[in-house]
């Protein structure tokens, strides 16, 4: 199908973008990579009056800022850019692991990090990744700039804290503390498809090898990325021994209440979430052990 009629705007200044969003509100949509919005327009699942293309905003919006404490990813950083940036991959390995699971290179060449987050598909990888990191969302409008923490950003299926007149200007991610290991795991029936379920894990062990911090988020099993609080607290203080892993698996399974669809039953997704959490933690434990051994050599 073809999109319905809309007026296309390609402003070159941020002020113009925000002005258009303020003027048209609900009638307008921001176009960044277009890999989710354009399919919706083509199929007329979305019909809009005004399309505000931010791609002409200029280089500042395409350049990640990799600082000693924080990494800032502005609105036009493409997913593929992250894959090709050794510096970003080193600073946030979790982002690299997850991005390789996002669709295909042809989609990631256009698709942006911020676009995926603003779209907030419940099955998408990047919202889950941000949920286990300290991520701050910067929202801009003619009314000013405000920040929202990740726990408050994702609200429901495809629904975020963004108001109709706001642009997701950038996300800022605090560098995880030294010693943090991260893992992303998902299962999809075909390469590049949306996952039936996915899991992002960030954890850190103390000197003795006991887990001191643990964050686990699942995607594809709820209306938003879901932190698995019961599983996380069971992991804390453990050494990720076999008994802990078995318990964490069943806790994770019990914590999610996924929907059934043509791709998988709710039961299957629940089982899968437990399995993915367990596998991700086993891999995290392996990474942590590897690091400790490397540092003793």
């Amino acid at each position: 199908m073809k999109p319905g009629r809309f007026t296309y705007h390609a402003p070159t200044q941020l002020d113009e973008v925000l002005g258009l969003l303020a003027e048209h509100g609900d009638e307008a949509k921001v176009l960044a990579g277009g890999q989710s919005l354009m399919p919706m327009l083509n199929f007329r699942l979305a019909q809009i009056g005004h399309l505000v293309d931010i791609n002409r905003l200029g280089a500042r919006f395409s350049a990640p800022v990799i600082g000693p404490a924080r990494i800032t990813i502005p609105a036009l950083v493409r997913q593929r850019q992250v894959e090709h940036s050794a510096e970003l991959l080193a600073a946030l390995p979790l982002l690299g692991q997850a991005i390789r699971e996002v669709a295909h290179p042809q989609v990631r060449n256009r698709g942006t990090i911020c676009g995926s987050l603003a779209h907030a598909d419940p099955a998408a990888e990047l919202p889950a990744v941000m949920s286990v990191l300290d991520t701050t969302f910067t929202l801009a409008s003619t009314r000013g700039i405000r920040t929202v923490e990740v726990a408050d950003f994702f609200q429901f299926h495809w629904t975020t804290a963004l108001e109709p007149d706001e642009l997701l200007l950038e996300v800022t991610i605090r560098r995880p503390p030294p010693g943090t290991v991260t893992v992303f795991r998902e299962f999809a029936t075909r390469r590049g498809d949306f996952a039936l379920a996915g899991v992002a894990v960030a954890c850190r062990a103390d000197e003795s090898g006991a887990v001191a911090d643990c964050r686990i988020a699942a995607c594809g099993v709820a209306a938003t990325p879901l932190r698995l609080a019961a599983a996380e607290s069971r992991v804390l203080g453990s050494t990720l021994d076999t008994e802990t892993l078995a318990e964490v698996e069943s806790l994770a399974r019990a914590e999610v209440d996924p929907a059934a669809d043509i791709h998988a039953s709710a039961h299957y997704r629940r089982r899968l979430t437990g399995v993915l959490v367990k596998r991700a933690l086993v891999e995290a434990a392996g990474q942590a052990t590897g690091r400790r051994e490397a540092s003793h050599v």
Partner: protein
Amino acid sequence: MSDSDQPGHRITVTVNRVRYEQVVEDRLTLADFLRERLRLTGTHLGCEHGVCGACTVIVDGAAVRSCLMLAAQADGAAIETVEGLARNGQLNPLQTAFKDNHALQCGFCTSGFLMSVTAALREQPVRDQARAREVLSGNICRCTGYRGLIQAVLDAGSAAVKGPVR
């Protein structure tokens, strides 16, 4: 740019090294622009939501879904389509590898595969099956199957297809 529906947006694009200047309607996709305005019908439209890969073209060096880009967005871009691959009526090495390995049957998906693989081979060589499958994974073929395609990519990959499409 203009707020009115008419007359649209004046864009200048280079397609297969030929410069075109046209006025396009706001909602015209790049795929439809190539097919209907420039009559470059080698680019095919399958699903029109970015899943099948049939409409893949190369925009400023990157393989993209032309159904998910607007023609107005392509202003100033250099675009390569399947029509740009052959030189003086001679198939290029990748096209030859497709032919030699029976990597196509009905041909509907072929132009998208060729453009995806062209972009991938410029980034890095493909030496093993796993990598070939990865490179092919963003396009769907519904009749020939993938074995011939994998072999074609391996043949072309080892023959070091490089440089811009001529």
